[in-house]
């Protein structure tokens, strides 16, 4: 059930290509307006790209080139189901008939469709909701039912557009656990803003920015070593880009030299990036002397509470320090400070090219 997609939607500034092995899940990350939902729309058959080609398990779902539309399978024949942030249960049907909708549309008799619907409701732990009207459900219940409805249509590709975004944290956690169970072995594309979704539901990640893939890789690698500013900020890491000036050092455009550890030595003169944890960054009022550290000076732009720590923002950089340290330093927004991070805490890597080099 492999998926091949290449699509260009000039109206939405979307221009992407991706290849998915069957039975795996891909998280699509990116800022608002980066084209994530348009990407799902192209796959679902709700948005026609100016050019593109989609193949799912050997079936050509769409093929549009400069000469015109060569192939177009309408949404209802694609076997691509879409679960959005809003569950959109049909308000005139009860829960059971909502879930039975897909099987009924596929031509199953009412009794069989309902039996199937009951099975899927059980699968998502919503069996007891079968006889409720669709509008008498809580947000979490409705999203479980919507999930059962999507699965009951037996899609070959399941698209999830921020499915947990409108739920309370603990409800989202419970529904996420269910999702993790039912998505196993399914070809899934998941648009999300939530690191937990990436950590628990995704095998791989792509990051979209302004309609282009700027980063792609296994979820584990992207979380540990993001290569795009968006992913770094999402996973709470500092990301610094520059040019390699030695096998284990780079210089930023501002002239800051960052030394660190590289899995493979960097090639001098090539683009490179450095990633480090905010907790590894220390904050000083005066330039620290002594042990060799990477230091950079800047103005404090924000102080934010972060659990039991305080996040100090200096431009794009983040340092997480204790409230006591903030008090000792007498930090306020606008202070000039020096940030220091030990080379041993910094991971260096060659930077991807702009078109996003999938490292797999």
């Amino acid at each position, binding site marked *: 059930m492999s998926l091949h997609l290449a699509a260009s939607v000039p109206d939405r500034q979307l221009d992407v290509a991706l290849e998915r092995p069957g039975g795996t899940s891909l998280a699509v990350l990116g800022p608002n307006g980066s084209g994530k939902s348009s990407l799902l729309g192209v796959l679902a058959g709700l948005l026609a790209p100016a050019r593109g080609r989609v193949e799912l398990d050997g079936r050509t779902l769409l093929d549009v080139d400069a000469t015109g539309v060569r192939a177009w399978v*309408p949404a*209802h024949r694609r076997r691509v189901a*879409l679960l959005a942030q809003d569950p959109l249960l049909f308000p005139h049907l009860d829960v059971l008939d909502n879930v039975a*909708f897909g099987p009924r549309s596929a031509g199953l008799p009412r009794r069989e469709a309902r039996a199937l619907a009951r099975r899927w409701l059980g699968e998502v732990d919503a069996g007891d909701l079968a006889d409720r009207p669709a509008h008498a459900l809580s947000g979490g219940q409705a999203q479980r039912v919507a999930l059962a409805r999507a699965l009951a*249509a037996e899609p070959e590709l399941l698209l999830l557009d921020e499915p947990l975004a409108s739920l309370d944290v603990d409800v989202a956690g419970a529904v996420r656990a269910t999702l993790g169970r039912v998505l196993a072995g399914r070809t899934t594309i998941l648009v999300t803003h939530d690191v937990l979704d990436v950590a628990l539901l995704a095998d791989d990640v792509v990051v979209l920015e302004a309609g282009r893939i700027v980063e792609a890789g296994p979820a584990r690698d992207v979380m540990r070593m993001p290569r795009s500013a968006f992913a770094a900020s999402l996973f709470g890491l500092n990301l610094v880009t520059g040019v390699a000036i030695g096998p284990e050092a780079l210089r930023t455009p501002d002239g800051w030299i960052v030394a660190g550890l590289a899995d493979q030595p960097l090639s001098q003169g090539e683009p490179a990036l450095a990633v480090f944890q905010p907790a590894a960054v220390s904050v000083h009022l005066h330039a620290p002397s002594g042990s060799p550290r990477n230091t950079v000076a800047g103005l404090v732009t924000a102080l934010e509470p972060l659990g039991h720590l305080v996040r100090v923002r200096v431009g794009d950089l983040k340092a997480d320090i204790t409230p006591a340290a903030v008090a000792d330093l007498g930090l306020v927004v606008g202070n000039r400070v020096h940030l220091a991070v030990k080379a041993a805490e910094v991971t260096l890597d060659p930077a991807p090219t702009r078109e996003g080099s999938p490292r797999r």
Partner: protein
Amino acid sequence: MPDSALRSPRLRTRQAPVGLPHWAALPAGLAVAFLGLPLLAMLSRVSWGQFPALVTSESSRAALALSLRTSVAATVLCLLLGVPLALVLARARFPGQHLVRALALLPLVLPPVVAGIALLYTFGRRGLLGETLQVAGIQVAFSTTAVVLAQTFVAMPFLVISLEGALRTVGQRYDEVAATLGASPTTVLRRVTLPLLAPALASGTVLAFARALGEFGATITFAGSLQGVTRTLPLEIYLQRETDADAAVALSLVLVVVSAVVIAVSRRTRSPW
């Protein structure tokens, strides 16, 4: 049920009206009087003693039966043609769309007599289509069919307007979900779009029926006034007014009651969700 104390008017919170100048009450009251007085005036003229006899006379019963029959037929025609038209207007994109919409709404503002003349030159014996129909042995003008056509012509916009507005309000998100679940466009229409539109469909149908029932100008121009064939209740009232004012008033009351029922029914059809 909530505690009865909570429902007493003394304790109920009320929205303070903003954007409602005090002086508006005067013209608003005049408007109510203007709309209500004629009804009262007519009621005061009803000769209740003769009422049963007047509304059950042969010509009255013929007119009422014809009116109901033709109005139902016209309403069915409005549904068969108007629902697809509303769908196309709300959801398709094609050149000249605003012209088509304007055309669909034209009968709302067109004087019914003009509509009748236009229909006559279309379906009349010497009309655009009439001549062809004549050859095929079908004569439309001055027949019951003509009554139905006239009523359909003037009533259709009521259905189309209310459906198109509702279609835009409901949006297409449910239909998109249904499509991704494997429902063909016809299945989506039958199982999702129309059920979601049910309230607007009901009120649009009722409005179209009411308009058809009250149709006068286009009918008398295009269909004439032949008892039992084309003389609907409004025509019967108009004719009786000359000869038997009591009968006209009694029949008018019948139409008022039917209209009141229609309004009550259309007010009831609120969205259940």
